[in-house]
């Protein structure tokens, strides 16, 4: 009986803890977004984040998209040949890339690259009292640190994904033309005929949401980092894990909203 009670208690405590942390994240998100619209604005910080989050993620996102597009063409060709449906390769590549793979994979790569570095940087600032120092110098840490990162994440990821779309489709095209011997004209026209605006728009919407989530989780975990090297380490891990999971969850939700 006590064993049963104890396990019920544990489940309850875990659930309450989980709900409380959702509340804390939501509160943090609300505060951060509130500060986006009220000055003072730190333009130099914003531009630096555009570079850090956007420009420097280009190689990672580009390579991911390129090889994903290439392998997609190869896989769908060998798979579809079993049903004599090789002709669908162009359509599969362009739809998969724009709707799903470019935003999700770019989101996950950026979560690893940017989410981790945001959490580590802000976490270190928390631990070394630099965030307190900002407050004592009458600069709001939300406006100085959080807002530029969240804005940059939300605005840069769609651009990265758009570039990723192009590179990914190009990767599929390369393999289809040079390895699978498709005709250039028919492949391109098939790709173009299949694609609809909503495919790209839904992908870019996902990208914006993922960018927001990644930078938000990086900032949240860094801002609330525990003490010492261990605290910053845990903050970094939590930022990457939580943003990756949120990306997968929201990917489903957004897909449902757009296509059902």
């Amino acid at each position, binding site marked *: 009986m006590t064993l049963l009670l104890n396990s019920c208690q544990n489940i309850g405590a875990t659930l309450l803890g989980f709900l409380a942390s959702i509340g804390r994240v939501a509160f943090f998100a609300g505060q951060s977004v509130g500060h986006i619209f009220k000055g*003072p604005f730190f333009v130099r910080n914003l531009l630096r984040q555009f570079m850090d989050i956007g420009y420097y993620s280009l190689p990672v996102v580009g390579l991911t998209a390129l090889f994903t597009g290439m392998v997609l063409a190869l896989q769908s060709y060998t798979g579809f040949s079993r049903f004599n449906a090789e002709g669908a390769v162009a359509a599969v590549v362009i739809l998969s890339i724009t709707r799903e793979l470019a935003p999700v994979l770019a989101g996950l790569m950026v979560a690893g690259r940017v989410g981790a570095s945001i959490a580590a940087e802000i976490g270190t600032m928390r631990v*070394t009292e630099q965030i*307190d120092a900002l407050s*004592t*110098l*009458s*600069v709001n840490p939300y406006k100085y640190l959080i807002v530029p990162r969240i804005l940059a994440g939300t605005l840069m990821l769609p651009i990265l994904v758009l570039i990723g779309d192009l590179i990914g489709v190009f990767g599929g095209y390369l393999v289809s033309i040079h390895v699978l011997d498709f005709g250039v004209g028919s492949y391109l026209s098939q790709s173009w005929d299949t694609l609809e605006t909503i495919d790209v728009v839904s992908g870019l919407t996902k990208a914006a949401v993922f960018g927001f989530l990644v930078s938000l989780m990086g900032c949240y975990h860094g801002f609330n980092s525990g003490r010492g090297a261990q605290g910053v380490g845990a903050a970094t891990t939590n930022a990457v894990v939580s943003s990756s999971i949120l990306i997968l969850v929201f990917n489903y939700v957004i897909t449902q909203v757009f296509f059902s």
Partner: protein
Amino acid sequence: MTAKIEMNNVVKSFGSKEVLKGINLSIEKGESLVIIGGSGTGKSVTLKCVLGLIKPDSGSIKIDGQEITTLETHEHDILMRQFGMLFQGGALFDSLPVWENVAFGLIHGQKMDKISARTIALKKIKAVGMDESVADLYPAELSGGMQKRISLARAIATTPDVIFFDEPTTGLDPIMADVINNLIRQCVKDLGATAMTITHDMASARKIADKIAMIHDGQIIWSGTVEEMDNTDNLYIEQFIHGRAEGPITNNSDIVA
């Protein structure tokens, strides 16, 4: 006359641990108060409550008679403009060069243009006994003592009314510690500022303080001048200033056991 800083029955708990159990404190304008006490007695939390970095659970904190525990964020940002703070580890922004660290409050808090802010920053860097050539270095390129001095320059750059010092001499060699003590004394005198310092370095406390308050177990248990401190028969003070392992401070806790 209203006190510059007044704390009344300030209570703060973290989880089930009650860190501040009713702090009462008052500092007159232009006075330098040093709070002494062992590690974990609530010194830092007291300081952070006055700075508004931590919100107390109950009690009142007044600056110039104005209650600050109920301020909105932007009102608090404005209040901060009359404060300067020297953090224990320096807390310099490692992404900015030294001069921008010193000028940070001027540029962002007071909206001064960069050229005049740099001029003032260079003056403050000199005032803490350092060469102007460090201005374009990054904090990581400086030694611990130099970082502390730059941090002091940053704290006084905005000519604050109130300066807070968190363990200003911790981690410094005795000579550098004395240099910092002298600088603090001089800066406070030059600015006519009110100062609140927390430390467990008695040499530093004697040098900086007009008045000393001792905190133990979340409460102020004694306060008076340096002279009164040396002549008191308060056993807690006695034990602390002579640094004995045996005494009332350790008997009632598990430090020795």
